[in-house]
């Protein structure tokens, strides 16, 4: 979709990840009561757990999808578009390669609504979160912001 755009998201206070320099490793996805994504910093071996908690609504997320990196040239196009926008708007050049984005005017959300129009009433505050790991693009539609915990591991490298 023409109006879809990426907005850099900073969920971590001290973000160690940079898409090509310190890639975020996807460790695990768990979906039981809560929806949980676990990522690892390869250099430090620390693990970051993103938990979408089940609260008042029946489910913690609306839906998710996961693609191998190669299969999403459209997201690469969105990144290119974001770079051009930053230049045109005179913003400083980024000092790292983001691995967390939110997607505005999301095609994914629009596709979901085309199937289940009631979403706009039942979950009106849905957001599209994009996680870029070393091998995958993981996308989550949810009204919630994930809780994040850091597990510091002994570096075995």
């Amino acid at each position, binding site marked *: 979709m023409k109006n879809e755009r990426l907005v850099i998201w900073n969920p971590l206070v001290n973000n160690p990840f940079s898409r*090509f320099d310190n890639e975020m490793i*996807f460790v695990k996805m768990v979906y039981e009561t809560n929806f949980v994504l676990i990522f690892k910093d390869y250099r430090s071996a620390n693990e970051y757990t993103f938990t979408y908690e089940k609260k008042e609504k029946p489910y913690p997320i609306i839906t998710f999808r996961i693609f191998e990196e*190669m299969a999403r*040239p459209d997201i*690469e196009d969105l990144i290119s578009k974001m770079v051009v926008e930053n230049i045109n708007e005179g913003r400083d*050049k*980024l000092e790292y390669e983001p691995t967390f984005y939110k997607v505005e005017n999301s095609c994914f959300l629009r596709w979901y609504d085309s199937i289940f129009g009631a979403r706009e009433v039942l979950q009106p505050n849905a957001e599209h979160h994009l996680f870029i790991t070393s091998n995958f693009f993981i996308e989550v539609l949810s009204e919630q912001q994930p809780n994040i915990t850091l597990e510091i591991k002994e570096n075995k490298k």
Partner: protein
Amino acid sequence: MSSKGKFKCVLLMGLIILISLIIPTNLTFALEGNESSKLGRIILSDKETMNTLDEYSLLVSPLSDPIPSLAKVDWGILLNRSSFSNKSGGTMIYHNNGNASTARAEFSRIGGPGEITSYVNGNKITHVKQTDGGYLTLYTSTSSTLGAQRPTLTFGNDKVRFIGN
């Protein structure tokens, strides 16, 4: 196996091949009878005429070692010129300081000439080449800081990302 033993095996193998050409192998007939034949029909069970599988294996020349895949050899050369970055699931990810031209040159080199199919999506193209070791792909990621291309080659369980400018 001694040369005498080998000779016996070859002789036996030749005999069996000759017999199997002349006589049906599901049921072995000593002689096919007909009205004018003075000899009757003698049926021998397969067990009496056919070797066991183990015995057969001695008669068959051992296969030569499989020919190594050219693409796998070429890919190994590329990995030697790259540095290991991380492992994600079953995928080993390497970084190479080459740029987009290097990536394209490697794509051409690995596995030699092969059928290439290109898939266009907007401004991005994914190239897939058939090689003797499986599919080799070339696609492009985008740098958020520079907007520069970060081409990536994938082959088997490996991925090499070219991060030079």
